[in-house]
């Protein structure tokens, strides 16, 4: 298993380096002058040229790439013409916020999809099942950004249950930075009100992020339960006289959730993408919102950094999910290495 994870990590790294070369090169061959966008309109050419030199943008692309790569290994992701400082600083500032949101959304997604899937799968063709299916069809067909807009309107604007954006209420100040994660820092410092306020703010965007994937995973679990329910070993388990709940929640459930867990990784990954739109709609001060604004300004270093960071997260999620599947399914665990 360890060997397998190591191999996966290695190939993920190779893919990411390949991707970074692609994006880096692509960003530099297409027209667009990031420096011009950064400075005011009448800035003279020599100033622009000096800036270009300080940022090594006048060198050949491969030299730029090697300089960049060298810096990356020192934890320096380059200068952002959008935020006008090192991308590393921006990442430190915004990434924890996004990670918190995504973690929260993932928790909602996992809990929700499993409950719904099992709920539907145990009541096939009853109203519970139809309701869940209706929900999951809505979930897969409505894009996350539409959910975000509708939630904002209904639950924030009309009903006033949730705040309309941001991560903390005005007047609630961020806990002093220990880990960078608001919820964690507040917990460490015992500021429970801050945690509550933070969760309150994060709930709507998290649900908007979670729903599309939740629907998909719930569907997989439901159909998993239907498929597995037809297996001989389930018939036999019933035939041995095991109580229905043992059959259903033990012998049926575990094999049924495997397809759900497998796509869970893909769904969380989708969430990383959707976070870009949802953070924008909710004004969530996270990395995705920062990144999309930077992207719109052709901030090359931020674009490459974004792709790399999301790629790393993606790889980790995939590996975690694979490990999880191997944990659930011993056949994989024993044949893996």
């Amino acid at each position, binding site marked *: 298993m360890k060997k397998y994870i190591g191999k996966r990590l290695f190939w993920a790294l190779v893919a990411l380096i390949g991707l970074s070369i692609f994006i880096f090169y692509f960003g530099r061959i297409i027209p667009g002058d990031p420096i011009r966008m950064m400075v005011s309109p009448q800035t003279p050419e020599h100033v622009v040229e000096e800036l270009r030199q300080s940022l090594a943008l006048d060198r050949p692309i491969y030299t730029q790439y090697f300089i960049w790569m060298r810096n990356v290994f020192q934890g320096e992701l380059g200068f952002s013409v959008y935020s006008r400082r090192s991308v590393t600083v921006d990442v430190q500032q915004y990434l924890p916020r996004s990670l918190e949101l995504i973690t929260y959304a993932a928790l909602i997604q996992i809990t929700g999809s499993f409950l719904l899937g099992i709920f539907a799968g145990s009541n096939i063709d009853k109203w519970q099942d139809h309701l869940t299916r209706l929900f999951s069809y809505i979930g897969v067909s409505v894009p996350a950004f539409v959910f975000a807009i509708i939630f904002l309107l209904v639950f924030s604007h009309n009903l006033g249950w949730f705040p309309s954006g941001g991560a903390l209420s005005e007047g609630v100040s961020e806990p002093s930075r220990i880990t960078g994660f608001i919820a964690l820092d507040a917990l460490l410092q015992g500021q429970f009100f801050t945690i509550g306020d933070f969760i309150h703010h994060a709930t709507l965007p998290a649900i908007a992020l979670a729903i599309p994937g939740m629907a998909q995973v719930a569907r997989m679990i439901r159909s998993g339960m239907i498929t597995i329910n037809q297996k001989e070993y389930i018939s*036999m388990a*019933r035939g041995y006289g095991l109580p229905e709940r043992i059959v259903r929640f033990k012998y049926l459930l575990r*094999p049924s959730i495997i397809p759900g867990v497998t796509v869970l990784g893909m769904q969380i990954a989708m969430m990383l993408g959707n976070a870009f739109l949802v953070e924008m709609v909710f004004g969530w001060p996270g990395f995705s919102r920062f990144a999309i604004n930077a992207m719109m300004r052709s901030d090359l270093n931020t674009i490459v950094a974004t792709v790399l960071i999301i790629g790393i997260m993606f790889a980790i999620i995939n590996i975690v999910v694979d490990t999880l599947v191997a944990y659930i*399914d011993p056949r994989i665990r024993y044949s893996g290495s």
Partner: protein
Amino acid sequence: MTQQKVLEIKNLNVGYETYRGVTDVIHHLDMEVIKKEKIGVIGESGCGKTTTMKTINRILPNNAVIKGGQVKFNGKNVLDMKKKELMKLRRKNVSMIPQDPTASLNPLFKVKTQMKDILKYSKEYDEEIDYKAKSIELFESVALSDPERVYDSYPFQLSGGMRQRVCIAMSLATPKDLLIADEPTSNLDVTIQNQVLNLIGNLLEERDLSAILVSQALGTVKKFVDKIYVIYAGTVIEIAKTDKLFSDPIHPYTIGLLEATPKLTGGGFSAGIAGQTPDYIDPPSGCRFRPRCPQYSDKCKNERPKLIEVEKDHYVACWGN
């Protein structure tokens, strides 16, 4: 004779929903098992043997449709049973040795987990008893070598023969009234088949159970059973004591079966009889065997032959007699 009937199936009709409509597989099937009697059920693949067996403890797949009939177990109709009674039936009365041990063991749980649950929920044993000891004992009784290792293994870590022995052990976990062995060897290697058959034979003898042994081949069950039911296309076409059937078969299908060289692997003995089992969506009217029958009359076309006792304990469903 007032022998106690353990199982009595009357006029059972079962079908499946398929893409072309609802099939009519089990067709007016009757069967009975008297206490301590061991019967064999013989028929080609697809003739409805497994369906009948699964009806007995109601573990049919979802798309099965029970259209009518009765399955009485110890006098009670299984088809009308409530959940609780059904549980009791499965735990105490009927046990089944599956056809495919690989598909019948949950691949994600260790043998020990599955075994424990069966023992635990049989309610036959005290909460306190040592499930492991009991399991090992059961494994030893089915001649599993290295029972400790088996106990702690996942099904996929065992060989086919071992899995089938585990299944047998599971089915014998509690004393039962009726043991159903549904082609217990059809998915096993030829070399293992005899071992398992003999094991089942010995167990039957030891425990003196009522039993139904299902097979495609007559030869397989011959030495274990008292009476044989020959099934064709969901209907019983001949019932006779084992010896009688071999010596004096009446139904043309049975004759064909006996003429065919039974192969141990099962599967085909259509060599002896031309044609195929019928289409269950729209089966032939009257006698279902008619299209393949060497000598049929108009009556065969119009009327379903009923089982007629031609001599004592020998029933045949054929207009030819």
